[in-house]
């Protein structure tokens, strides 16, 4: 329990450091931000008025403190450009990205375990497919795979929509169909990475003495593989999955662009380009919380799987 509290405190520290660093990097552009908000025709007077209105004339620490105080009360501010509430924007965007990432992650876990285990145990063509997939997934960027998928399955065969996202509460079937291609585009690279990790871990475990002992005792091979070998090999796999989750958050930016999905990546990208500080801070905050939560969950998972790591 104490290690969990320590992890939480560390996480809060990381959140503060990262958000302050982000805030500081964007600080000092007050006239530029005001000019961008008001447009090309803005007069010096209206720029100065906008600076005051947005509070950009205040010192860095005051601005950051105001932002943190807002975060604590659940107020992330409003976009400088659209006046949209950041919380509302994130509540629309985060579910899209999380759906994309978690669906990909779940499928990655299933396919990676299956492929990794079979590649390690059976060898032969399955092993070669996994290795080939690994090279393909590493070498070909997700957005290229996405473009190929769109051309084949949306433009040529019209099986799935080429773009767009339908919220599940509006139409469950359309929601599912709108995610098939984006998830597939992310899945290939993700499976490639995790499956090879699981394959390597399985091969490592299969050479261990305890496996030989189990087999010598005549225990069913399936029990040996899935109860003992896979459980011991799962920790590296889980770590690889947590890293994949973080990588997927980055990869989603491009996939959201190709499929015109209204996710957090698009929002972060667009906001950063125009220095929409409240929006950037909101997306950074959510991203860092997601990353830290993933790491924490991975640590807990590894601890549950491997009692030795608890110490």
């Amino acid at each position, binding site marked *: 329990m104490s290690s969990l509290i320590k992890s939480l405190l560390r996480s809060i520290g990381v959140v503060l450091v990262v958000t302050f660093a982000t805030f500081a990097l964007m600080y000092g552009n007050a006239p530029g931000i005001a000019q961008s908000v008001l447009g090309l025709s803005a007069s010096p007077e209206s720029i100065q008025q906008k600076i005051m209105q947005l509070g950009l004339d205040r010192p860095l620490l005051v601005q950051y403190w105001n932002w943190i105080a807002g975060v604590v009360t659940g107020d992330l501010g409003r976009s400088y450009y659209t006046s949209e509430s950041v919380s509302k924007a994130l509540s629309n965007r985060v579910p899209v990205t999380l759906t994309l990432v978690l669906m990909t992650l779940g499928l990655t876990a299933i396919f990676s375990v299956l492929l990794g285990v079979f590649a390690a145990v059976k060898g032969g063509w399955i092993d070669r497919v996994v290795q080939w997939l690994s090279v393909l997934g590493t070498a070909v960027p997700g957005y290229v795979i996405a473009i190929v998928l769109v051309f084949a399955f949306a433009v040529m065969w019209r099986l799935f929509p080429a773009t767009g996202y339908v919220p599940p509460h509006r139409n469950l079937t359309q929601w599912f169909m709108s995610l098939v291609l984006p998830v597939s585009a992310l899945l290939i690279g993700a499976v490639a990475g995790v499956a090879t990790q699981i394959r390597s871990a399985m091969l490592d475990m299969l050479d261990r003495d305890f496996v030989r002992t189990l087999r010598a005792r005549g225990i069913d091979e399936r029990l040996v593989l899935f109860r003992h070998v896979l459980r011991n090999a799962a920790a590296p796999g889980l770590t690889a999955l947590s890293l994949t989750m973080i990588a997927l958050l980055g990869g989603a930016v491009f996939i959201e662009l190709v499929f015109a999905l*209204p996710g957090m990546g698009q929002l972060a990208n667009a906001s950063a380009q125009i220095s929409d500080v409240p929006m950037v801070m909101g997306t950074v905050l959510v991203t860092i919380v997601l990353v830290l939560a993933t790491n924490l969950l991975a640590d807990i998972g590894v601890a549950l799987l491997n009692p030795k790591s608890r110490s």
Partner: protein
Amino acid sequence: MSIGTPQFISRLVTTAGVTAIMVAGSVGAVAGKELLTLGATLDMYGWNPGNQPGYQNWAAEAVWGNLVKCNSVGGLEADMAESWEVSNGNRTFTAKLRPDLKFSDGSPVALEDVKASFEFLTTSGRGADYEDIEFEMPDAQTISLSWPEPQPILNNKICSANILPMTVLAAGNWDVPIGSGPYVLDDGATTTGSEYVFKKNSDHWNASDYPYDNLVIKVITADGAAVSALTTGQIDATLVAAGSLETVKAAGMEVIQFLGQTPRLIISDRTGAKIPALGDVRVRQAMNMVFDKAAMAEHLYLGNAEPTAQVYRKGTAAHIVDLEDPYPFDVEKARELMAEAGFADGFELEFPTMTGQNFETLLPYVRQQLALINIRVTEVPLSGANAISDLLSGKFPVVLWQLGNDGNSAFQIYVESTVDGWWNLQHVGNEFIDGRWVKIATASAEESAALQQEINRYVVDEAWFAPFVYMGSTYAFNPEKVSIPTQSDAEALTPKLRDFQ
């Protein structure tokens, strides 16, 4: 038939295929003609009425009305005002509001709302344009807006005001738009940043000119995605990159080629304050002569452009129909001019660049051609919040930019050539232009056109710019769903909402 047999697998694949096609069919199904679905290559700017660019802003056109609308050459068209008059030496605009107009929240449109809407613009980027207005309301339907000085771009100022209820403006709540436009936002069906859904405002005074019962605007920023969405029927119309022209045509789409931009060198340091050579007109003329405009139109713009020697669009008041290019492509002549001016060795230039300005196409050619007269160009990428203020700061003596050629050429003169114009980067006054600008403010249409053409000829002779071609955007649409018989956009970048029929 057992699981795993070829027959079972065959049936499974067939069933899965049919199911997939049925489901996909329901996903891709296009609704009837009552629906117009437009692709937008950029998201909208929210619902603050004072911060609404014209480019692809069908959402703003949908929800808000204006007193009058500007047409493709800056003239006025009826909207909330059923009649209007410009008087008092171009100082006063008097409008008579239509009776029984209502906002989308059900409240009646009152003159106080019109007044508040113009007053609200004093807080916008163009606040200075609206600061000194005096309002008069002689009766319940009539309002006069008066400026202390004659207004050369009065039309533009009137058209730019979106009319909202004064209570909404006072509250400053921009979550849901309230207006009296031809459509009403369906907030529940809208996904901000992705899909904006509107229903027709059947109470709109001109509902018959907006034939679609429902309007959907889908934000699709990547060109490839926009093309896929158009060719698979997810959207009815969108801007596409010139490189995608053949793809969309092959898919049966029709294309409108807008020529709303004139990419050019803006030679702003004409006094030679930063680079003395630029103060010599011969150097500026030489810079014009190193560009083979016909070759640029054909190769850089793939034939979707027209060579030009002037920056004002065809059909505008300032455009000179029979203007011959005084600076035909002639590198030897350009070198002679540089030598005559005493700058045969050339000079260094820094060009600011930003994404979205087609620099990947333009800059290599421009840099190479200027090098022929020993003008050495280095690129200074601008990004982030300071990009625009850096660009407009005047610190760059020459800027390479795809500047618009507005249908209201007086507005273009104001923006580019008068001392206050934001694209007159050094903000240096000029007696010839400023004198004529004052006259334009009170001139008749014919006199104004003559004065504008004098200004045009002057900036050509003085080589204020080095224009290359008229070019612009490529707008593709599905002719089975949409027709676009008119073009109302003064910026000539996309159709306006009222152009979709």
